[in-house]
């Protein structure tokens, strides 16, 4: 195989995430490309969480797949939940001590799933304990079971490394990354390096983990199991292992971020955590200057303080998710009215309301574009993958400052919480363009009507005013209807300027046969899976292209129109119920996008389900396919 899908599972808090990080880094050291996504409950300890991971030898891992070739389970809930999702002949690594565990004993499992599994086991005539299930899989689905006692591994490691018995349990989750690494036959050096990087040189931990790795490797060898993954053929020397949150944070720093306000919310908070970690780092400070990261009392304060910072001349940003964004809307409208360049990084999660706080969606497109009373210019951009997210996060400031508008960088949980091996960005591409900045001076008119983008001075440099009320060129309240008409129009007409000036590659990218009749259209985290599905279709003789919309607002109508005009089948793909991007196209172009593939379970669209869905549409059986796969 030149690619494999793996699943690492355990209860929340049992170290699954650490396992993932170590494993991804080890794989990166080996030269594989990896995409790994965390799927977890809105819970701190106890609920089921798992990592879905794609590892590729010869191309970029850009989508996930479920069923998987390998499951490494820390607990029985993982086995019960996912075991049926092993591919024919897949590998199942589990703790032998779990064998007697019964389905009904898994207290943390949600009722609906338990009932479904009970029905399924019953209909298959399989007992409701792990052992029966495992036997069934081995005999009926060719699953290769690698079972050993995790306890015995830990106690032997504990003895060897003289770890106090109360602490040895900490290494439980090391077993699963070790198992995967062993099954792929990763060199110990890669694992060791990964551990060293993850534990920042705390050698004790590294050595203990390596001891686990060795023990597990031995069991894997004993079991004569392996995942036949080809050696990596990718030619990278150095890369980044980063989540979407990380990529955005790095991009912001590259783009000159100086002030970030936030109120904690999933899945946005990790971005600020990254920045906070950095912000008091002496080397960062000496290299870049101060980066102020401020945790505030709510999202209203977050947007308000970010605006304040921007008025002081600082590149400022705030980061949030749906519920928080709702609270920022009034501030956004103020930023529009006062032409304040702020960047709001908006990570979508499952809505409405608190919704599914730790699951993904792309259902907030219209909230990002239309929320806010009154008409004003704003820019909404999105990123198709981690590297795009990095560049876009930096560029967002340029757009904000050049056009003096609030910019919303619309991302989602799928990207935010997936970790990937990301190419090194080309820093030459990162510009810092501040637009029409002036020193002020006598008679300075902050809101001059002379050009669409007025001259901007910073607080401290000149005397001028801001007000959310309609204002004159100096920024003082006026209700004069003629001034109103001109000022209002100027603010809105910036949208056309933005549309005119932004280069095409900031508006959209097209990949695949652009001469083909099939056009998939989507935005954000849909990109990877859409491209993989297209590639697979191409192998079956169907050529198509994917339009990755990057500029969502102002809508790049001209460009999209041209693309649509030559296509026969246009299919919108989105993590939502409404295929909102299709509606947006309809609004802007007056052309209905009738076909769509959507998913709103909170789980990402996976490769295995998208390709058949597209085929169903292409064959004319359906116009709209709702995807539902995933646990």
């Amino acid at each position, binding site marked *: 195989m030149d690619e494999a899908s793996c699943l690492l599972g355990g209860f929340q808090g049992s170290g699954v995430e650490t396992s993932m990080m170590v494993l991804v880094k080890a794989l990166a050291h080996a030269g594989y490309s990896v995409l790994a996504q965390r799927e977890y409950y809105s819970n701190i300890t106890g609920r089921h969480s798992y990592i879905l991971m794609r590892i590729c030898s010869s191309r970029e891992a850009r989508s996930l797949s479920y069923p998987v070739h390998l499951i490494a389970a820390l607990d029985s809930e993982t086995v019960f939940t996912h075991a049926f999702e092993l591919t024919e002949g897949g590998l199942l690594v589990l703790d032998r001590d779990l064998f007697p565990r019964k389905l009904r004993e898994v207290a943390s499992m949600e009722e609906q799933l338990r009932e479904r599994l009970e029905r399924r086991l019953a209909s298959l005539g399989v007992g409701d304990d792990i052992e029966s299930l495992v036997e069934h899989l081995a005999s009926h689905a060719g699953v290769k079971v690698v079972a050993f006692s995790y306890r015995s591994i830990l106690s032997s490691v504990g003895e060897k490394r003289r770890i106090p018995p109360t602490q040895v349990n900490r290494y439980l989750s090391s077993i699963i990354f070790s198992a995967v690494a062993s099954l792929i036959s990763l060199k110990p050096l890669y694992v060791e390096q990964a551990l060293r990087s993850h534990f920042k040189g705390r050698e004790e931990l590294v050595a203990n983990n390596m001891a686990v790795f060795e023990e597990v490797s031995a069991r894997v060898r004993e079991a004569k199991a392996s995942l036949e993954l080809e050696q990596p053929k990718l030619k990278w020397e150095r890369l980044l292992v980063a989540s979407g949150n990380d990529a955005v944070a790095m991009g912001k720093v590259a783009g000159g971020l100086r002030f970030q306000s936030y109120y904690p919310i999933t899945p946005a908070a990790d971005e600020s955590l990254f920045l906070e970690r950095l912000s008091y780092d002496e080397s960062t400070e000496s290299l870049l200057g101060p980066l102020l990261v401020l945790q505030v009392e709510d999202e209203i304060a977050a947007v308000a303080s970010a605006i304040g910072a921007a008025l002081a001349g600082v590149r400022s940003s705030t980061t949030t998710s749906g519920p928080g964004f709702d609270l920022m809307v009034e501030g956004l409208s103020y930023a529009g009215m006062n032409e304040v360049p702020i960047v709001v990084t908006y990570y979508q999660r499952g809505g409405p309301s608190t919704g599914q706080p730790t699951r993904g969606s792309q259902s907030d497109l219209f909230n990002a574009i239309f929320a806010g009373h009154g008409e004003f210019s704003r820019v909404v951009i999105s990123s198709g993958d981690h590297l795009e997210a990095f560049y876009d996060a930096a560029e967002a400031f340029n757009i904000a400052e050049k056009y003096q508008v609030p910019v919303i960088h619309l991302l989602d949980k799928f990207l935010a919480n997936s970790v990937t091996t990301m190419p090194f960005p080309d820093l030459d591409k990162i510009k*810092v363009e501040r637009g029409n900045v002036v020193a002020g001076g006598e008679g300075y008119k902050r809101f001059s009507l002379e050009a669409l983008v007025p001259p901007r001075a910073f607080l401290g440099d000149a005397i001028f005013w801001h007000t959310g009320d309609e204002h004159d060129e100096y920024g003082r309240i006026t209700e004069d209807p003629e001034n109103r008409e001109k000022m209002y129009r100027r603010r809105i007409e910036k949208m056309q300027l933005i549309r005119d000036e932004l280069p095409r590659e900031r508006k959209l990218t097209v990949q695949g046969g652009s001469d083909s009749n099939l056009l998939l259209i989507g935005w954000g985290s849909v990109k990877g899976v859409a491209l993989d599905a297209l590639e697979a279709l191409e192998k079956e003789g169907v050529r198509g292209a994917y339009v990755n919309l990057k500029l969502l607002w102002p809508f790049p109508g001209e460009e999209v129109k041209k693309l649509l005009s030559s296509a026969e089948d246009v299919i919108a793909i989105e993590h939502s119920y409404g295929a909102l991007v299709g509606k947006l196209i309809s609004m802007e172009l007056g052309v209905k996008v009738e076909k769509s593939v959507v998913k709103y379970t909170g789980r990402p669209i996976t490769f295995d389900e998208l390709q058949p869905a597209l085929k169903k549409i292409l064959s004319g059986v359906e116009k709209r396919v709702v995807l539902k796969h995933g646990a």
Partner: protein
Amino acid sequence: MGLKPQDYRTQLWIDWCPGCGNFGILSSLTLALSELSIDPKKLVLVSGIGCSGKIFQYVNVPGVHNLHGRSIPFATGIKLSNPELTVIVHGGDGDLLGIGAGHFVALGRRNVDVTVILHDNRVYGLTKGQASPTLPYGVKTKALTHPNIHYAVNPIALALASGYTFVARSYALEAKHLKEVIKRAVQHKGSAFVDVLQPCPTFNDVHTPEYYKRITYYLDERDWDPLVRNPDEREAEEKLLKAFKLALEEERLALGVFYQNPHVPTFEERLAERFKTYPRASPATSPIGRESRTLLTPETFQKVFRDYIVETLQGY
């Protein structure tokens, strides 16, 4: 610099009602600014929405008239980004203690070096006279259909409980007193709060100048010492308690400084402990790019993001 009070005034016609207490606040403010010789460009007046909030355009300094209730977080963003600026917040009782009460409490926890001046007219002026959070229970001002069913919040007590390190009360029509209090508030290092009793002749026909004349008295600082003189917790606590007791007095309203503790480090000072260069190099005063390019070179990128970088070890 020798600027006169009127130099701090713009030429705009003022659209407050005749007799409005806001005129008094405006003139005491400009008096204070002139006596403090503040460079107008280096001052930022942040104001909320309400009659009170309109003060921003009558003062000839940079003004940020923002959203109803949000002046404090606006001011926080400005001040922390550029600590060289003097930042003064003006807001109404609805603005700061109704819709903005959450931010009001939060500022107390931060002790950012800004001054908050409450135009306390006990009504929502600009929306035509509804009860504000400072209107006492049972009072029926002109525009109310019925006596107020809410109890009043006590601004001084709330500020003390929230952690403001300078808390005072003054009166809009006592120009000199108010000017002095504003001066002390602005000079105070930390979050300063001034509750300014403000007649609103149009809507508050109960708390009139006559009423305030009757009910207010000056604190005599010969026997009332609000200043915490030593960085000593006991003294601070004792003075805070005394201030709180005084705040509870409602039969007569004391004018003056209730409490002042200059020993609590400001947010800026606490930041400076962490950033080696702050406030000298602040977000507003440090460069963010080199000739339209990112400050990050490939080398610095690798230093800054070292934790995220992985070398392929293929071949090892």
